[in-house]
């Protein structure tokens, strides 16, 4: 395994980490409208992710930074090519972060209502758009000899990509519902469990179509294995929910995310952004990679610091392990 293959793996790990973690906090954001019945319940939902959403989002920034360092051409082609969808995602992430922090800073009805709406939409749109973006990456887009995307914005909204977006949207909402069932107590927990089962079925149908389509288009033996794991994990999560085992359900819904994203990366390899104009123009792990020196340096940095990050982030989840219910929500401060 060469260094640029290691880095392909690492970038995949960072994206998988991002979707595993922010996947459920996007889901929780979406559930503020699907599940919560009143303000107190919305606050319960928001507070289940309150201490951790910011740390979750850094996985995205790290994936971005690592792509820049290890595959500059991938970084350049992807973000200049998918400019407008990325712009929407960035705007959403900006508003979303501010919404979490500012919602409770004033007590006014309109103020809080607006931020709650913002949390819903800014969770929903990125959850959908990341799927669109990754579907396009795997499917291949119009990349010219200079490694530049030359298609239009509308080309990115093809049926396969939209299906990909719906899959991530459904999957993250499902993952978020399972997380809510795990992290809350009382009535909302029971409703989250029921909703999670419905969302799980919907996700299963959408994901199966999308992943089989992907497998038929670009798959190999490895990606097929990941596909099977994703499907089994989803079925397992549903069974665990039915049995009331929320911890297991969350691990398995997480494994579904991991396996599904891994399957996309496996079907991509060794390309990183295939070109539909001419296979020779495709960006690959070799022609988009940095020099061996930079890759070696970044490998050392990643090998030292990724475990440390995992340790203290895991510790954070342990500190905030207690379930939350409406009775734990303090009165609004002015």
């Amino acid at each position, binding site marked *: 395994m060469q260094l640029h293959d290691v880095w392909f793996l690492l970038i995949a790990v960072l994206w998988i980490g991002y979707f595993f973690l922010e996947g459920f906090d996007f889901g929780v954001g979406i559930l503020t409208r699907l599940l919560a019945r009143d303000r107190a319940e919305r*606050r319960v939902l928001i507070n289940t992710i*309150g*201490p*951790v*959403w*910011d740390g979750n*989002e*850094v996985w995205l*920034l*790290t994936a*971005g*930074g*690592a792509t*820049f*360092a*290890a*595959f*500059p051409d991938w*970084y*350049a*082609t992807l*973000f*200049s*090519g998918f*400019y*407008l969808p990325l*712009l929407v995602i*960035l*705007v959403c*992430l*900006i508003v*979303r*972060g*501010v919404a*979490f*922090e*500012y*919602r409770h*800073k*004033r007590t006014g009805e309109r103020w809080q209502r607006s931020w709650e709406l913002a949390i819903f939409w800014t969770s929903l749109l990125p959850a959908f758009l990341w799927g669109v973006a990754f579907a396009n990456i795997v499917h291949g887009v119009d990349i010219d000899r*200079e490694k*530049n995307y*030359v298609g239009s*914005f509308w080309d990115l909204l093809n049926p396969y990509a939209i299906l990909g977006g719906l899959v991530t949207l459904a999957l993250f909402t499902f993952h978020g519902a399972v997380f809510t069932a795990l992290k809350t107590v009382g009535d909302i927990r029971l409703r989250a469990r029921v909703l999670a089962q419905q969302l799980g079925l919907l996700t299963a149908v959408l994901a199966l179509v999308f992943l089989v389509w992907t497998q038929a288009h670009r798959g190999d033996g490895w990606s097929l294995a990941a596909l099977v794991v994703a499907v089994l994990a989803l079925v397992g999560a549903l069974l665990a929910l039915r049995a009331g085992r929320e911890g297991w359900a969350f691990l398995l819904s997480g494994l579904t995310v991991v396996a599904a994203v891994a399957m996309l990366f496996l079907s991509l390899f060794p390309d990183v952004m295939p070109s539909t104009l001419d296979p020779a123009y495709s960006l690959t792990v070799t022609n988009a990679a*940095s*020099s061996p020196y*930079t890759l070696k*340096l*970044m490998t050392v940095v990643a090998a030292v*610091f990724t475990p440390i*990050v995992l340790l*203290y*982030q895991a510790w*954070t989840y342990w*500190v905030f392990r*207690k379930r939350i219910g409406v*009775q*734990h*929500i*303090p009165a609004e401060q002015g």
Partner: protein
Amino acid sequence: MELAVAHETIARWQFGVTTVYHFLFVPLTISLSAMVAGLETAWVRTGKEKYFHATKFWGKLFLINIAMGVVTGIVQEFQFGMNWSDYSRFVGDVFGAPLAMEALIAFFFESTFVGLWIFGWDKLPKKLHAACIWVVAVGTMLSGYFILAANSWMQHPNGYTIDPVTKKAQLTDISKVLFQDTTLVVVFHTLTAAFLTGAAFMVGIASYHLWKAKRRPERSDGRQVASMRTSLRLGLVLAVVAGLGTAISGDSLAKVMFEQQPMKMASAEALWDTQGPAPFSIFAIGNVNEGHNSVELEFPGILSFLAKGDFSSAVPGITDTAKAEAAKYGGNPNDYIPNIFITYWGFRLMIGFGMTSFAAGLLGLWTTRRKFWLAPDKRTGADEPPRLMLTKHRELGPALTRWSWRIGIWTMGFPLIANSFGWIFTEMGRQPWAVFGLMTTASGVSPNVGTGTQLTSLIVFTALYAILAVIEVRLLVKYAKAGPDVAERPPAKDPTLRGPSPDEDADRPLAFAY
């Protein structure tokens, strides 16, 4: 406007708008996190409630601020790829490394531990809780360090080669990126300036409360005054220390820049012709087309001192430097002259506003000096606003007192202006280069992104940032005016990491919730 020019112009405007805006929050985040950490440590060690109230109060303002800093930072990570894809392809091998290190080493720390700090008041033991905000503080400084290392490489490329086949920059020695003198001096300068910013912020808000308490003693609360007095003191001391540090590091940075980018420094002074000894300009109105200043007022010999450390050395002027660069890189000398109006006045506003804050700190320290220095009848208790004293026995007159408090309040904004102009100066002074001597800004733009798309994103970001600025400032004003919540009590017993037992406290509300 010609299309190619519009292309570059819009991309530069977007970078300017988003970056200057981002950097309004960065220095406050860096300094306030450390100052809050200091205050919380003082509370943990002494148990005095004034420190607890100060920690909570400044902590709230810090959180309103860091929220904006974090979200506007996301754009920074991605807009190189969006608007500057050719730049990204060219420099990624070198430039990407410090960026990735920032995310992995510094930003994870900041974001994870700030969550622990916000929500951990009733979950973590006191000392561990204070340690969390220290981690945040160190994280923000590390963050700044890596970003400044990346920027310093653009100012002075080092530790790289140009690949003969791909014609791209390749990293050969990371230590020359992380530890070159440009990086070290810039980090020193930026961090001290950041602390000057936080110090002035604290001085301004504390002055507001103390002056109010002075005017309306019947409506003031001794506990609020006590915590604001402590804050004022901390702010003033930091303003002086950090102000001095900013001046010293600024001087070192100028010497490094005279060496590495003579054009930037000549343009900072609007020094058209090479002169020795060279004067420091106080005021000038230049004519770029004719290459001279129509009006000027200057101190002889000072610029030579800034550049070389003596009063007689020759300092190269704009015209000669432009000719030298044109001879080296080809083209017309005029292509190598940055916007002199902006660099000249940016440099002056940076120094002017920065040093005014430093002076305000000095004056403030003198007028509010400790009671042992003052005559017994002029001393004030810990819960009264300090008298502003000129000498041991003489208080400032009412008009001067009023103005002193006012200046204290206004100082709050000065370093923010200085920081913004400092960046505008140093980035525009490097033009036409994106990476000095290696890549021009014009050639770094994404070739495949249409001007319509670029314009959309420029408008979206500008509008969004303007709206958020209004919301943020209003919240800051609301919380700053309210002052410390002295009714709030510190946690009665130190929480243990094991948490409450299942039956005890199971339904107790969270100490903090969104």
